[in-house]
């Protein structure tokens, strides 16, 4: 009976775990108790303030009376404005559908089994569809000017379109930076370094204020489009550097093998180099998306109302002015849900890809 698989003596159970990790010696025990005390106190405070003493009805005077509780009433009152901005109230189903569609599309695109060529036409078609939905003016939808767009749809659009459109641009810039043609290389390096060398806020400012100065008289480009272009250019410079890292991680022998068998440069890139490089760069690309998602709040300075800006407008209402904390918590929660799911996705993918490469 000696050939039983040898296992460490089992020490399961939460009590054992706590003994081992929290109370293993005197000092540990003291530290653990202090920490637990503060955590509990904090949680009790949060529950008291956020749930037990909170007011959920959209009633400002009730809120003011309950001085030691949160006033979620402001959220019930303002959530539509915070999420959809000034989009006409009875048309807000449209941005809602657009958002769900958009998020669904992203979720699908991020799944490995969807990494096929038809993803590109799907994105193009979806973007057109989303444009129709948001602008309207056709198919019996009333026309909504894009100056009325705002809130979460705007934030999502700026960051997602920004990242997705920056993706191919970033690849080209990264390839250009490694090009053997000096002119192309110099241009790409100059662009990348210039854009990376300035903060997003100044890129947005240039896109909105300076860019029109270069246009011939009479030609105007929409403010939203200018901001979007600014964000795309900004992101593409960052992604270019991410891709450069990915390209460098592909060993020289891969290029040589491809060249030796007679593949052209673009064939080599498409079937040999890019598939390997992209696996490496998906997690950092998602990270770049996360920071772009938050950084879009800077479009406020050029007069666009993203999620954070609509929240700020919501609390200028004199009736509700006192309850800005609740609004910021609400908005932070929305940001958190998006950013955290993207981050977990990136982590999962990283583990998955690493598993795939283990032999």
């Amino acid at each position, binding site marked *: 009976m000696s050939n039983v698989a040898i296992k460490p003596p089992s020490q399961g159970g939460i009590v054992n775990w706590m003994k081992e990790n929290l109370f293993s010696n005197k000092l540990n025990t003291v530290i653990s108790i202090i920490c637990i005390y503060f955590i509990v106190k904090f949680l009790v405070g949060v529950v008291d303030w956020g749930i037990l003493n909170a007011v959920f009805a959209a009633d400002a005077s009730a809120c003011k009376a309950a001085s030691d509780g949160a006033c979620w009433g402001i959220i019930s009152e303002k959530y539509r404005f915070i999420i959809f901005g000034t989009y006409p109230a009875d048309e807000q189903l449209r941005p809602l559908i657009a958002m769900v569609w958009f998020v669904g599309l992203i979720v699908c695109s991020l799944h490995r089994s969807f990494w096929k060529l038809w993803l590109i036409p799907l994105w193009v078609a979806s973007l057109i569809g989303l444009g129709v939905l948001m602008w309207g003016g056709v198919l019996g939808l009333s026309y909504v000017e894009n100056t009325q767009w705002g809130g979460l749809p705007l934030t999502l659009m700026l960051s997602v379109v920004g990242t997705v459109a920056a993706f191919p641009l970033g690849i080209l810039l990264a390839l250009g930076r490694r090009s053997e043609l000096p002119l192309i290389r110099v241009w790409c390096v100059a662009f990348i370094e210039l854009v990376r060398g300035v903060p997003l806020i100044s890129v947005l400012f240039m896109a909105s204020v300076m860019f029109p100065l270069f246009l011939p008289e009479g030609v105007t480009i929409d403010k939203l489009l200018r901001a979007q272009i600014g964000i795309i250019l900004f992101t593409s410079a960052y992604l270019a550097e991410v891709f450069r890292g990915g390209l460098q991680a592909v060993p020289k022998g891969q290029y040589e093998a491809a060249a030796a*068998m*007679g593949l052209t440069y673009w064939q080599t890139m498409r079937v040999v180099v890019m598939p390997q490089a992209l696996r490496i760069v998906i997690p950092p690309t998602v990270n770049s998306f996360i920071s772009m998602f938050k950084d879009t709040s800077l479009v406020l300075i050029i007069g666009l109302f993203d999620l954070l800006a609509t929240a700020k407008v919501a609390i200028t209402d004199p009736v509700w002015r006192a309850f800005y904390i609740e609004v910021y918590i609400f908005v932070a929660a929305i940001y958190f849900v998006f950013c955290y799911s993207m981050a977990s996705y990136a982590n999962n993918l990283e583990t998955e890809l690493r598993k795939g490469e283990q032999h």
Partner: protein
Amino acid sequence: MSSNGQTSADDMLIHVNNLNKWYGDFHVLKDINLHVKKGEKIIICGPSGSGKSTMIRCMNRLEKYQAGEILIDGILLDDNVKNLEAVRKEVAMVFQHFNLFPHMTILDNLTLAPRLVNKMPRKDAEDMAMSYLERVKIPQQANKFPGQLSGGQQQRVAIARALCSNPRVMLFDEPTSALDPEMIKEVLDVMVELAEEGTTMICVTHEMGFAKQVADRVIFMDEGSIIEENTPHEFFDNPQNERTQLFLSQILGH
């Protein structure tokens, strides 16, 4: 093709004439002259850094050269893209570190060049790939990824992949020197078979047993020059140059 009509009735496949190459100021190849007939098996050896890899890498233009000329099957290797395309179809290479594409199955590795370069339909390319996998004795691995194979198996796949482009010349750059000793033989066996079938081979290797068995000529390089060139029999039993003698005593000595 090339206007240099060197593809006369003679059965020469490769001409290397007064080849010179520099890395910066470093003169890495000095006046190399080498002529290879169809079906000939050439073994190149020499100390590390003598320019062996550089020379054979010039033959499919993984490296450029500054003076002299290389003609493969009458095609001049120069900056002309058309010529380069033509030469790369005729010359295949097997690398020291296999350089298989890790994200593709073995079968996809093999069918890539036939499909993209020779525009062969997928079905035909796969049939051909399977027949070459059988020749290197690993058809059962076709749907695995390179990372799942042993070094010896990977190198045999790399040989099969090279064969898939139907080359007229096979270049080998130290194909067994990255392998564990127990795997060297399985790769050399495949190469011996290729040699016996009459494939034109230029092989950088220090496997002297293999050289004796298959080579028509052995070439010894040192410091960028061809020092000695002879039949294997003469080369091993009666080396003329003292550098060759020293080299042979070093590699055969232990």
